């Protein structure tokens, strides 16, 4: 494929062209200025896909589950995209993205698109451009977009704010407690999955989780009560039930009208994040000039970080 400007890629992506979609995803990730108008155009075509965040601690069987869930979605005739997010190296910024491994069984089906992204250490957790990647898939006609994250903590909370439905995966035998509590992600789940339920100790994990939910430790958002779905990759059980539960959640959000509030919250967060990013980029652009000067003042303690930032913003206004 020869070089194509982003605006020329948009009609192809809207028609479902794999290569055009893939190129736009790369430009979403790099934050390319050339692609800005193209993403504005794509955004007008979004709003149809159901966005599902899936998270869980390493070893919870999450990748296997995502692969099976994608297969179940395909079996029902819907198109599915997966954004699989892995951490970047804090040293080089590079990353090894291994999550395609489990996707082997899905190979060759044009109704499944898997894209790996690195966290890139971006402020706020989610991979830079991950939500624009979701826009690309949404606009290109994928019915369901699964965002899969590894790790623990901030990333997971960010997913909950970016997804319509959030699934948290736990597994028996990974430790004494429910790992989701440790990770601080119990509260964000709309659906809990307990994987590896062929194991003898799975019942205890399920019981612990249900008790926790009953005690109200995981305060539900709105009228939906978080549900627990047991799965077993070995016995090939529970995946269809999980998909049904995700669909039920979507319907419940629509019926209660809460979907609007969720979408508004997602929009607000994206707006603020975009604002932060724009400011940050403009601050950093003159890294060796103005920024370095302010940093020197900070080092002498003659200026505080907050005052320095206020000064920079005021100057941006003057130069605008």
């Amino acid at each position, binding site marked *: 494929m020869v070089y194509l400007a982003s605006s020329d890629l948009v009609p192809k992506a809207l028609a479902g062209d794999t290569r055009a979609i893939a190129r736009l995803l790369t430009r979403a990730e790099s934050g390319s200025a050339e692609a800005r108008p193209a993403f504005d155009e794509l955004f007008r075509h979004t709003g149809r896909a159901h966005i599902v965040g899936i998270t869980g601690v390493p*070893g919870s069987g999450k990748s296997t589950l995502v692969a099976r869930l994608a297969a179940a979605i395909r079996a029902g005739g819907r198109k599915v995209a997966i954004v699989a997010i892995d951490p970047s190296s804090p040293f080089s910024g590079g990353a090894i993205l*291994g999550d395609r*491994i489990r996707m082997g069984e899905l190979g060759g089906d044009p109704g499944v698109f898997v894209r790996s992204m690195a966290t890139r250490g971006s402020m706020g957790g989610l991979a830079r451009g991950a939500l624009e990647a979701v826009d690309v898939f949404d606009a290109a006609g994928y019915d369901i977009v699964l965002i899969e994250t590894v790790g623990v903590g901030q990333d997971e909370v960010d997913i909950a704010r970016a997804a319509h439905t959030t699934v948290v995966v736990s597994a028996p035998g990974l430790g004494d407690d429910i790992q989701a509590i440790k990770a601080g992600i119990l509260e964000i789940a709309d659906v809990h999955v307990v994987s590896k339920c062929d194991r003898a100790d799975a019942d205890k994990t399920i019981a612990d989780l249900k008790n926790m939910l009953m005690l109200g430790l995981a305060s539900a958002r709105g009228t939906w009560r978080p549900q627990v779905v047991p799965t077993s990759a*070995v016995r090939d059980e529970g995946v269809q039930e999980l998909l049904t539960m995700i669909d039920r959640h979507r319907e419940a959000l629509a019926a209660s009208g809460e979907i609007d509030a969720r979408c508004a919250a997602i929009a607000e967060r994206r707006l603020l994040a975009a604002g932060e990013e724009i400011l940050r980029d403009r601050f950093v652009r003159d890294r060796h000039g103005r920024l370095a000067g302010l940093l020197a003042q900070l080092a002498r303690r003659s200026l505080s970080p907050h005052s320095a930032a206020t000064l920079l913003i005021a100057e941006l206004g003057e130069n605008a």
Partner: protein
Amino acid sequence: MNDPTQSPPVDGGAGNGDAALRATVDAWERDEVARFIAKAPERRAQFTTLGGFPVKRTYTALDVASTPAEDIGLPGQFPYTRGPYPTMYRGRTWTMRQIAGFGTAEDTNGRFKYLIANGQTGLSTDFDMPTLMGYDSDHPMSDGEVGREGVAVDTLADMERLFDGIDLTKISVSMTINPSAWILLAMYVALARRRGYDLHQLSGTIQADILKEYQAQKEWIYPIAPSVRIVRDCITYCAQHMKRYNPINISGYHVSEAGGSPLDEVAFTMCNLITYVEEVQKTGMHVDEFAPRLAFFYVCQADFFEEIAKFRAVRRVYAKIMRDRFGAANPESMRLRFHCQTAAASLTKPQYEINVVRTGLQALAAVLGGAQSLHTNGKDEAFAIPTEEAMRIALRTQQIIADESGVADVVDPLGGSYFVESLTTQYERAIFDVIDEVDRRGGTIKLTEESWFQRRIADFAYDTALKKADGEKPVIGVNKYVMEAERFDLELHPYDVSTAARQIAGLNKLRAERDNARVAALLEELVAVAGDSAQNIMPVTIALVDAGATMGDIVEKLKTVWGTYRERPIF
């Protein structure tokens, strides 16, 4: 991680003699050594073995004082540090077992006969990738791989041609095969029955060490639990029906080839050993009923004394595990016997002729370490599978060691060397440390699933690559004494492009001629046996191959029961 940098065992409660010796050694360091170094510094501040164990300037009686005399012992006596047998090579030298396999069964049969004619005393079979992974030659995954790196075997008919004209009661046959090993074993049994042999006469080995596949070599089909059950079935079947046959060859070689350290190579085999023994014990079999036929397979790497110490230490560790952990009473259950292969990964493409020297040194270390059988690599292995000429030189290398060097005339000639004994004891302790850590963290299978073994291998491999890149680990011809613009004009083993077509034609003919209804019925029986782990999978598999079932028929059928394995890789 276990710390191999722990100080060497030095005498704890020294007697008067030791105190006097220590004073002498200290004085020597202070006077002669210090003065000498002031004039001519040593090449490095700290020397270490290839495996990272620090080595001292020299060793004295002080360094063996903490090793109990009975741990060194005598050849053929517990704990067998000095050799599994009292006379070792004074009776019969080690088995010279060059591995061979390429093309179709007829092609490899020709190479076998060539090697036997040249004085080889055991056979060893290399299979092609499809056979190793349980695919028939006409499976799409086999495209381009049939008969290329080893011989293609799909059916019992192939096995019959492979050993045509070779009396299997007179020569031992080793088969390098893992996830599909039990099917090859079934073919071997069916072949022996057709020829009217008594199964107890057969001697040989199947590798069948599946745990190290998940950890190192990465040849697998099914998930870990059913795969370990198959290994268990091979061990119990052979214990009952094939008294001279080794149903498993617990292998460290591949840990080393995958980049693991010499310590991890031997330590991981002990962890895997423990798992297999425990599995077989669960069937109610006593350790002395099957342990005498457990066999091992190690690499011989480049660090001469370290390798010798490694072999001596693992023999001692094995003896102690079998007696103390598993309650073995029969000495045969405590003698570690191993096959050894020189290190393919140490061979280089640049200046490839010098691989003969590398291999010669490694082979000498294997013999001084007490190997029971040995494969020496061909000088051209960095290019392709070896030619006949390369194999002949490799075999002659062993024959020179056996017949000209004199090292085979004394048992454990390095026994009592301060350095070798000290390093042996260090290795023993480090191996037990790894075993303890694995026990503490929940056992071998759990840690394999969690990629604990895989990570240790990857880390050592990465370190080694960095050391090669910056020259800290010299490799002659690669990062030292490099010859510019080298041209390779050696004759390579040719690949016959008609191999796949010939193999597939035979396969189709067999499928057309066999009793397909009988095969189908037996495959259903196989499913039932697979679903009941109290049963042994060998009898039905033997019936299947005898009825003309292909390897792929059997393997694919069981995938519907057990599924397949996919690893979560670590970096």
